[in-house]
């Protein structure tokens, strides 16, 4: 049989703006593997998209309706859906790949053997932003007395980093001011930004998604907030998030952990094998290589590499979900491998271990120049030393709250 990979995507609803490029990227890379290599290890990939509309109920419905077909891995692309799937994963024995979203604590492989969230957790992201700000100001000590505003989508996603930001505020003596944006107010943020104007924070950090992002960028420009001091998480970095604000968005920064642009061998292959043949849904070829598109590609790279690793480990070509989980746990994407798959320089090498399903991998800051994203910093590490103990604690709390939580039964390796 084929390698069946369901993709939970959303091309409709209020979050479609962010969902579409990701869905395209995910789909196109896998499709390209089929076209160029005939699949993975010679077995074709059966790709099926299931529309969730970023809605947890529909997400679960998608999960239920596809899991029976031998799904190898799930990418929910929604923190809400991820949370629903986490307990199911170990029962149904299908791994969940929540790439840089979802439950931060899921990085604890001992507790969550079926969940993977490489390359970074939200807490890594938050700590990286603080580290970046400190660099700008001349060191962690300079954070003392600074005011950092945090504007976020008032849902699980946006609230996840708060404990870490508060912890760091304690450690380094900055003041954290929170600006929640309710989901139904995404396009109507003038109050939040009025507050920002009054509070005059030195930096603004944003955890936004969907229509929240472009609105925030516009509002920031409107109150004349210095854009180079406005830093978003990697999900707030879509090209369509910055573009609508025009000139005003110039200088806006976000984190990233992969390259943008189409100048990578694999992306060129996508253009050639998929987009040109009209098998892609992208609105125009220019969209290929945009930030969130590449994010989708990276997600599919993980899937493909995990499957390949599983094939190597088990020696069979037609792997099942349990094998793919092993593949993920032994995932090791080296420089050499990146080169092989035509993504040299696209991302940093990455390794997943049984203990650490995320990896605290390096990130960099990119900046909007009015047309496209440009790197604005070197790659740097998040504050692993702070994040790690918090993750462990959170995992313990999770287990505590969800007694009886199954002990890890899967052997390592």
């Amino acid at each position, binding site marked *: 049989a084929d390698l069946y990979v369901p993709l939970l995507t959303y*091309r*409709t*609803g*209020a*979050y*479609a*703006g962010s*969902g*579409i490029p990701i869905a395209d990227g995910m789909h196109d890379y896998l499709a390209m593997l089929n076209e160029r290599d005939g699949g993975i290890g010679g077995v074709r990939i059966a790709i099926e998209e299931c529309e969730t509309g970023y809605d947890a109920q529909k997400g679960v419905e998608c999960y239920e309706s596809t899991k029976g077909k031998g799904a190898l891995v799930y990418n929910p692309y929604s923190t809400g859906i991820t949370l629903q799937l986490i307990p199911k994963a170990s029962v149904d024995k299908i791994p969940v790949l929540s790439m840089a979203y979802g439950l931060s604590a899921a990085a604890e492989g001992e507790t969550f053997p079926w969940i993977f969230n490489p390359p970074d957790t939200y807490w890594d992201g938050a700590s990286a932003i603080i580290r970046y700000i400190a660099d700008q100001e001349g060191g962690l000590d300079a954070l003392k007395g600074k005011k950092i505003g945090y504007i976020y989508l*008032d849902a699980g996603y946006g609230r996840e980093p708060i404990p870490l930001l508060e912890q760091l505020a304690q450690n380094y003596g900055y003041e954290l001011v*929170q*600006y*929640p*944006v*309710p*989901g*139904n*107010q*995404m*396009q*109507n943020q*003038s*109050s*939040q930004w*009025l*507050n920002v*104007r*009054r509070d005059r924070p030195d930096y603004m950090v944003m955890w936004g998604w*969907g*229509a929240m992002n*472009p*609105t925030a960028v*516009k509002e920031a420009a*409107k*109150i*004349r907030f210095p854009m180079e001091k406005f830093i978003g998480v990697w999900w707030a970095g879509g090209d*369509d998030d910055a*573009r*609508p604000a025009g000139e005003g968005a110039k200088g806006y920064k976000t984190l990233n952990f992969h390259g943008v642009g189409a100048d990578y061998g694999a992306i060129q292959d996508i253009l050639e094998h998929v987009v040109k043949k009209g098998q892609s849904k992208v*609105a125009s070829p220019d969209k290929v290589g945009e930030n969130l598109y590449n994010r989708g590609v990276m997600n599919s790279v993980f899937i493909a590499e995990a499957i390949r690793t599983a094939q190597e480990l088990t020696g069979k070509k037609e792997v099942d979900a349990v094998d793919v989980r092993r593949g993920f746990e032994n995932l090791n994407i080296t420089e050499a491998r990146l080169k092989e798959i035509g993504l040299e320089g696209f991302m940093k090498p990455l390794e997943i271990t049984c203990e650490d399903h995320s990896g605290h991998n390096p990130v960099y800051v990119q900046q909007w120049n009015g047309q496209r994203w440009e790197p604005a910093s070197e790659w740097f590490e998040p504050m692993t030393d702070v994040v790690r103990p918090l993750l462990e604690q959170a995992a313990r709390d999770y287990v505590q709250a969800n007694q009886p939580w199954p002990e890890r039964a899967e052997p390592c390796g």
Partner: protein
Amino acid sequence: MGEILYLILIDPFVQMAELPDFFLQVLWEGFVSGILYALIALGFVLIFKASGVFNFAQGIMVVFAALSLVGLYEAGVPAFLALALCVLIMLGLALGVERLVLRPLVNQPDIILFMATIGLTYFLIGLGEFIFGGEPKVMITEELLLPTGSYAWEVMGGLVIFQQIDIAAAVIAVVLMTALGLFFQNTRIGRALRAVADDHQAALSVGISLNQIWAIVWFAAGIVALATGIMWGARSDVSFALQIVALKALPVLVLGGLTSVPGAIVGGLIIGVGEKIGEIYWGSMIGGGIEGWLAYFIALAFLLVRPQGLFGERIIERV
């Protein structure tokens, strides 16, 4: 305890006094959002007044109108021609809705018609995404010769910033509302509208053509939706998320009274300014983000005093 009282009762006013320029800015922002709410509410009012139909689809009509405009433009149609075509599209929509949805549902209870408009909402969402895709689009503000800059006014030791587009929105809103208000007030048509809203069957019996009346108001509501879409689109972007904003028009609507055009304006301003002030000066005490429901509570407070809203028609209770 005393401290809490101080925080609730005194401190916010101290803050207002301390930063008067900022307070002015808050008022202005409240005013602008109020105007924008009022625009959406206006669309509701038109239709409610004319048929007693609570048109839930107004929000999606806003999105649909804006999307068509941008969509046409992106397809290469010049901006103003696209605008004109959009007007035609809204006309077609009005005629279609009248013919296919309203006409067969004459004289049905309000809630059934309300439901039908929710059905219409679903349909339009599907159709809109089918045609235009789900990606957000950028409003063609400049192409429509709408101003985009801002004025900064130095006052009281600070700065108040006025976006030109907001000023334009206010002007357009006022013009639209006055025009519609005049048209529908005390004219033959205006009377007929209210008659229809009261009793479909009796209206039919005196020779009022429901079909014609409904086509007119839905078209008017479509035009309002187009204007609203342009203004909201210029503020954020044009995407389906905008329809959520339309829910904000509901408290505005009931506060002003479901049947009153001036009520839509006054309600909009009260809610716009009220929720801004509430959010900025009180909201942070309980964690912020209270705008989502504050408007409803403001409306509720008014309703408890006047159950028909500020300018709504009296609810007739007789036996």
